[in-house]
C-alpha cells in the first residue's frame, strides 16, 4: 500500500514538481531565534482565507443591490441553517484581521525586521494594511441598514475633502449627490472583485520577498545552526491559528451581530458611528474644526501612512537586540496610548441611543400582533405559564403543549378555564389565574394566535413591546387609535408613527395633546417615565 502511494506521488511529482515544491517550501531554513513571535503573518493569511470562504458563501445567497441586499441578508440570518454563523464569522473575522495585521506589523517594527535589505517587504506590508482597511470600509455598506448607509455617507464626504483629488475620489466611489445604487455597486465591486485578487497578488509578492531575503535573523543568530521551517515553526503557526480560530468561532456563535432597520435616508435622528477600528480617526477629525478640518480628515492620516511606508528609510541603523530598541518600544507604546485615548474618548462621547434598537435579524412576527394580543404575551410571561406548559419546543411538560391545544378551544372556554381550571378540565392541577376579565381576554387572544410556526417568534417579542402594549391596553388607546388594523379610526392610525413624528414630539404630545395639535380631542395622559418609554418605543417599532 505504502509502496503504491509512493509510486503515485513520484509519478505526479515527475509531471508537476509539486512534491518538490512543497518540500522546498516546508524545509526552508530559518534562523535559530525564530519562534512564537513570528506567527502573526501566517495567522493573517489564514484569516484572509476564512474571509474569502465565508464571503463566497454569503455571496451565494446575497442580492447585491440596495434594498434587496438587506432582504437577502435577513433571509441568510433568519431562514438559512448556519447563516448567522457565516455572517458572524465574516463580521468578526474582519475585526480580527485588523487586530492580527496590526500585531504582525508591531512585531516586525519592534524587532526592526524591516531593515536592509527588507525595505520592500515592509512597504508591501503597509499596502496590505491599507487594503485590509479598504475591505472594512467597503464591506460596511453591504448590509444596507441604517448603520451601513449613514456610516458610508460620512466616509464618502471625508474622501471628498481630500485636496485636489477629493471631487474625483467621490465621483469614483459613485457618491456624487448621495449614497445610492451607484455607490453600492462600486463598493460591492471593490469588495468582491477588485480587492481579493489584489490581496492575493500582494500576499504572493510579500511572501516571495520574505523567502528571497529569508526570515530576519536576530543579532547572534549567525553563530547558531539554522532550523527548518517544518515541523517546529509550522506547529507554532498552527497553534496560533487555532487560538485565533477558536476565538473567532466563539465570537461568531456568542456575540450576535445586529441588523438594524433598512437604510432610511430620511431618518434625521440616526447618529452614525464607524466601526471600532476607525473610531480613532473619527475622534481625530473632531479635534479640527472649520477650515482646519481637512487636516484631521485627510492630511494627518495621509502623513501617517507616508511615515509608515518610509520607516525603513528613517531608521537605518544596524540590527540590535529587540530589548535594546528603546526608541521603537517607546514609539509603539506612545502610538498604543494615543490610539487607546482617542478610541476611548470616542466611545465615551457616544450619546446613548435615543431609540431602543430592534434587531431585525431576529424574527419580527411579534410586530404583526394586535396590542391586545401583545398584552397577552406580557400576562403570559407575568403568570409564568411556561413553567408548566410547553410552547412548541421549549417550556415545561406538566400541562399540555399550548401551540396545539389552542386550535381546539375558543376564547370563552379559555377564560372559564383560567378562572377555575378544574371546572373545565376535571382533575387539572393548574392554579386559577388572578387577572381581571379584560386581562384574561388579552391572554386568550394571544393564545388563539399561537401555532407551532410562530410560537418561538412570539416568545421572542422584546419586553419593551409587551410592556408598551400593556400601557396601551390599560389606557384604552384602541378606542380611538388603530394598530395593525385593530382599533378605531377616531384618531390617526399609529403604524408608521416613527416616520411622521419625532420621539420627543410624541412624548410631549401625551402630556398636552392640544398644545402640539390644536383641535385634537385626545385627553392628556400622565404616564410614568418607564411607561412612557415603553409605549413610545413600542409604537415606533410598529411596521408601516
Amino acid at each position: 500500500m505504502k509502496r503504491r502511494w509512493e509510486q503515485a506521488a513520484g509519478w505526479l511529482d515527475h509531471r508537476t514538481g509539486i512534491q518538490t515544491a512543497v518540500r522546498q517550501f516546508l524545509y526552508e531554513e530559518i534562523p535559530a531565534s525564530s519562534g512564537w513571535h513570528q506567527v502573526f503573518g501566517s495567522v493573517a493569511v489564514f484569516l484572509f482565507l476564512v474571509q474569502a470562504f465565508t464571503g463566497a458563501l454569503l455571496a451565494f445567497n446575497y442580492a447585491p443591490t440596495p434594498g434587496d441586499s438587506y432582504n437577502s441578508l435577513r433571509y441568510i440570518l433568519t431562514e438559512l441553517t448556519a447563516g448567522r454563523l457565516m455572517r458572524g464569522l465574516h463580521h468578526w473575522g474582519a475585526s480580527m484581521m485588523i487586530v492580527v495585521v496590526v500585531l504582525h506589523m508591531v512585531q516586525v517594527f519592534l524587532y526592526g525586521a524591516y531593515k536592509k535589505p527588507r525595505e520592500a517587504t515592509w512597504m508591501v506590508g503597509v499596502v496590505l494594511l491599507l487594503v485590509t482597511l479598504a475591505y472594512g470600509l467597503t464591506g460596511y455598506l453591504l448590509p444596507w441598514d441604517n448603520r451601513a448607509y449613514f456610516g458610508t455617507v460620512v466616509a464618502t464626504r471625508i474622501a471628498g475633502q481630500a485636496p485636489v483629488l477629493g471631487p474625483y475620489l467621490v465621483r469614483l466611489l459613485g457618491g456624487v449627490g448621495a449614497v445610492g445604487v451607484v455607490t453600492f455597486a462600486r463598493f460591492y465591486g471593490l469588495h468582491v472583485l477588485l480587492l481579493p485578487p489584489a490581496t492575493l497578488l500582494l500576499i504572493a509578492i510579500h511572501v516571495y520577498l520574505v523567502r528571497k531575503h529569508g526570515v530576519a535573523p536576530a543579532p547572534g543568530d549567525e553563530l547558531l545552526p539554522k532550523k527548518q521551517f517544518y515541523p517546529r515553526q509550522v506547529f507554532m503557526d498552527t497553534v496560533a491559528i487555532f487560538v485565533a480560530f477558536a476565538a473567532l468561532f466563539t465570537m461568531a456563535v456568542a456575540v450576535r451581530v445586529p441588523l438594524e432597520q433598512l437604510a432610511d435616508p430620511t431618518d434625521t435622528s440616526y447618529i452614525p458611528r464607524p466601526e471600532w477600528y476607525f473610531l480613532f480617526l473619527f475622534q481625530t477629525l473632531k479635534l479640527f474644526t472649520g477650515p482646519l478640518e481637512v487636516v484631521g480628515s485627510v492630511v494627518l492620516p495621509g502623513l501617517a501612512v507616508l511615515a509608515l511606508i518610509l520607516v525603513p528609510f528613517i531608521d537605518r541603523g544596524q540590527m540590535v537586540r529587540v530589548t535594546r530598541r528603546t526608541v521603537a518600544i517607546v514609539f509603539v507604546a506612545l502610538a498604543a496610548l494615543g490610539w487607546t485615548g482617542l478610541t476611548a474618548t470616542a466611545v465615551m462621547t457616544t450619546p446613548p441611543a435615543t431609540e431602543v434598537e430592534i434587531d431585525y435579524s431576529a424574527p419580527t412576527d411579534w410586530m404583526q400582533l394586535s396590542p391586545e394580543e401583545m398584552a397577552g404575551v406580557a400576562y403570559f410571561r407575568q403568570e409564568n405559564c411556561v413553567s408548566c406548559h410547553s410552547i412548541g419546543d421549549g417550556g415545561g411538560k406538566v400541562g399540555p403543549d399550548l401551540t396545539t391545544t389552542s386550535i381546539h378551544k375558543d376564547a370563552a372556554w379559555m377564560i372559564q378555564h383560567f378562572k377555575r381550571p378544574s371546572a373545565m378540565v376535571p382533575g387539572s392541577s393548574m392554579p386559577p389565574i388572578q387577572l381581571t376579565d379584560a386581562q384574561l381576554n388579552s391572554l386568550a387572544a394571544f393564545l388563539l394566535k399561537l401555532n407551532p410556526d410562530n410560537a418561538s417568534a412570539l416568545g421572542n417579542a422584546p419586553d419593551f413591546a409587551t410592556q408598551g402594549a400593556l400601557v396601551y391596553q390599560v389606557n384604552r388607546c384602541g378606542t380611538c387609535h388603530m394598530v395593525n388594523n385593530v382599533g378605531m379610526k377616531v384618531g390617526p392610525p399609529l403604524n408608521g408613527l416613527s416616520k411622521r413624528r419625532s420621539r420627543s414630539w410624541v412624548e410631549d404630545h401625551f402630556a398636552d395633546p392640544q398644545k402640539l395639535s390644536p383641535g385634537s380631542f385626545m385627553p392628556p395622559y400622565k404616564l410614568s417615565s418607564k411607561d412612557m418609554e415603553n409605549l413610545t418605543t413600542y409604537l415606533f417599532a410598529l411596521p408601516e
Partner: protein
Amino acid sequence: MPAEQRETEGTTRRSFYIGAIYGIWGIIAAALGLPAAAYLLLPPKVRKENEWFEIGDVSKLAPESPVEMTFRRNRVDGWKIISEKSTAWVVKEANHQVVAFGPQCTHLGCAYHWEESKNEFLCPCHSSVFAVDGKVVSGPAPRPLDRYETKIQGNRLLIGPLEGPPEQKA
C-alpha cells in the same frame, strides 16, 4: 546525554509536532466545512405557504374536455415573495369531479398541451402522451401528470399546492 537518546527524543518531539499540525487543521476544516455544507444543502425554513388561489368558474366545463386556466399566485422565492401567473389544465371527469394538472410534463418539465383531435395530452419535447385522467399512455414520462390540490367553493375552483415529488414542487 548520549547521542542516541537525543535522537529518539528529537523524533518523538517531531512526530508530536506533525500529529498536532494534522489534528488542528482537521478540526478547523471540520468546523468550517460542516456548517458550510449545512448552509448550502439544508432547505431554508419554510415560510407560510399552502395558500389557496381562485382559478375560476368550473360549472360550465364540458366533461372530459381539458381547459387551460390561468391564475395568479404568490410564491416564496428565496428572500422574495413574488406574485406570478401560473396555469393548470382543468378537467371535469365523467363523475363530475374536477381535477387540475400541473402544466409541466413529468419527464423533463416541458409544457404539454391537449390534442383535441386525438383526445390526449401531448408533450412536444419527447412525445410523452397522457390520457385525460393524467395516466401515461406512451413515451418516456416516468409517472402520471402532477395534480394540484383542489377545493370547490360554489362554482369556483380553488387551487392549492402541487402534489408530486418534493423537488418538483414549485
